[in-house]
């Protein structure tokens, strides 16, 4: 019996000692950390994708708390995350839209002129350093750097043209950052489908025609027909997404119809019409049991 008491006593003494020392240390060595940083960090999805423009989620958290950056920059977390962050910081959130990448090129292999046999590293960034891989020096090269940059399997090369799968895309912007020709931009999707300009060639119509069958020739038809919504700058239409109103698209639709090269397109998630079209296809009959995971992002890796 005495040994039980003794053991208990020793443990108690040890525990008191340690608790006291740690308590003392906690006070003496206390470092002020803004609790909001940790709260923000916890609310972020932790994908560390860099879509916000910061190196990782932790750095973004610090920037948000410091007020250097609005809380709605996390595209992976989306709206719910932004709301949560706004709640933590006690700020109100401006209306924001999901940003999604748009490929400003519409030429498939068969549309491109002046394509040559290219030997060398098969990637866009390197091929972009070699003149004459294809005639157009602005358009998509189709080697798929964006495909390998995408962590979400949301972009693919379809017949030589990068094509976004908006069902899978989370809008992290990795593709836009890696594209050596900067033909991918992040566009605020105010509706499921947006009008975008699918050409990037700044040259005059004649020069464009020499390199591409479908390139924008800078004819300004859109400028004339859309009531000034489009403005042609450097032989390409530019549209102001701030003024874009998804509920009032009549003038834009007119411009889209009038475009001789059909370079103004509605792009985005499949519409109900598209879904209607695929309705008759066979639905997957195998349903896998889908257990929710219990493994979260704790640091207990060792």
């Amino acid at each position, binding site marked *: 019996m005495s*040994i*039980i*008491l*003794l*053991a*208990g*006593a*020793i*443990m*108690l003494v*040890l*525990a*008191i000692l340690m*608790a*006291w020392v*740690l*308590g*003392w240390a*906690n*006070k003496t060595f206390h470092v002020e950390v803004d609790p909001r940083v940790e709260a923000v960090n916890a609310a972020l999805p932790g994908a560390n994708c860099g879509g916000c423009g910061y190196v990782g989620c932790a750095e973004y958290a610090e920037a948000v708390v410091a007020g250097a950056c609005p809380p709605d920059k996390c595209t992976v977390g989306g709206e719910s995350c932004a709301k949560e962050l706004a709640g933590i910081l006690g700020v109100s959130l401006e209306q924001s839209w999901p940003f999604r990448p748009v490929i400003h090129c519409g030429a498939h292999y068969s549309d491109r002129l002046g394509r040559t046999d290219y030997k060398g590293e098969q990637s866009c960034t390197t091929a972009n350093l070699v003149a004459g891989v294809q005639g157009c020096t602005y358009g998509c090269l189709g080697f798929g750097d964006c495909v390998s940059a995408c962590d979400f399997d949301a972009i693919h090369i379809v017949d030589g043209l990068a094509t976004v799968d908006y069902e899978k895309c989370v809008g992290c912007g990795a593709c836009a950052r890696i594209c050596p020709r900067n033909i991918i931009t992040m566009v605020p999707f105010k509706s499921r489908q947006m009008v975008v300009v699918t050409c990037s060639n700044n040259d005059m119509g004649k020069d464009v025609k020499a390199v591409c069958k479908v390139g924008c020739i800078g004819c300004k038809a859109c400028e004339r027909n859309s009531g000034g919504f489009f403005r042609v700058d450097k032989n390409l239409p530019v549209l102001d997404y701030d003024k874009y109103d998804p509920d009032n698209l009549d003038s834009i639709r007119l411009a889209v119809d009038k475009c001789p090269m059909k370079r103004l397109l509605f792009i985005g998630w499949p519409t109900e019409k598209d879904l209607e079209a695929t309705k008759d296809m066979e639905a997957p009959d195998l349903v896998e049991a889908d257990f929710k995971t219990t493994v979260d992002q704790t640091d207990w890796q060792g």
Partner: protein
Amino acid sequence: MKDNYLKQAWLVLLLALCFGGVLAGVEHSLKGRIDENKKADTLGQIPNLVPGAVSASFSNGVYRAVTQNGDHAGWVLLVTGQGFADKVELLLGLNADASQITGVYILDQKETPGLGNKIVEDEWRAQFAGKSTQQPLEIVKRKAEKDNEIEAVTGATISSETVKDMVNRAAADFRRQLASGGF
């Protein structure tokens, strides 16, 4: 202030106290059995190491093996040494005047499996029984011919040498101490 830290940690303190007690309780109820296990581990081998012995008493670092009727039958030494890979622990049985080896038992070893670890095999160990401690044993790679020769385990000369060295040295030391009246 001090109270404050302790107040925060009351659960830890309580658990520490309880766990300490519980563990001591467990130990109390199992200690006997564990100690017996430990003893049996060594003592169980005594009859094999010293012919005729049934039990032994431990004092001064050696086991004094006795026969059924309490006669002194021999000694058992616990010897450790560095083997090829790691420590080798063996029991060395000697007769009453330590002039003869009566048996060797390997308690623990981590020699190369399939090679060095053959030193645990009865056949090999049996070579030691009956050897005299008057002159140091030798390891040979062929069939043992002379009295003081032990045939090495094939391909494991170092492990064999280890055991031989341990036996030689322990026996010599023990003889000297026995002679100086140590026991």
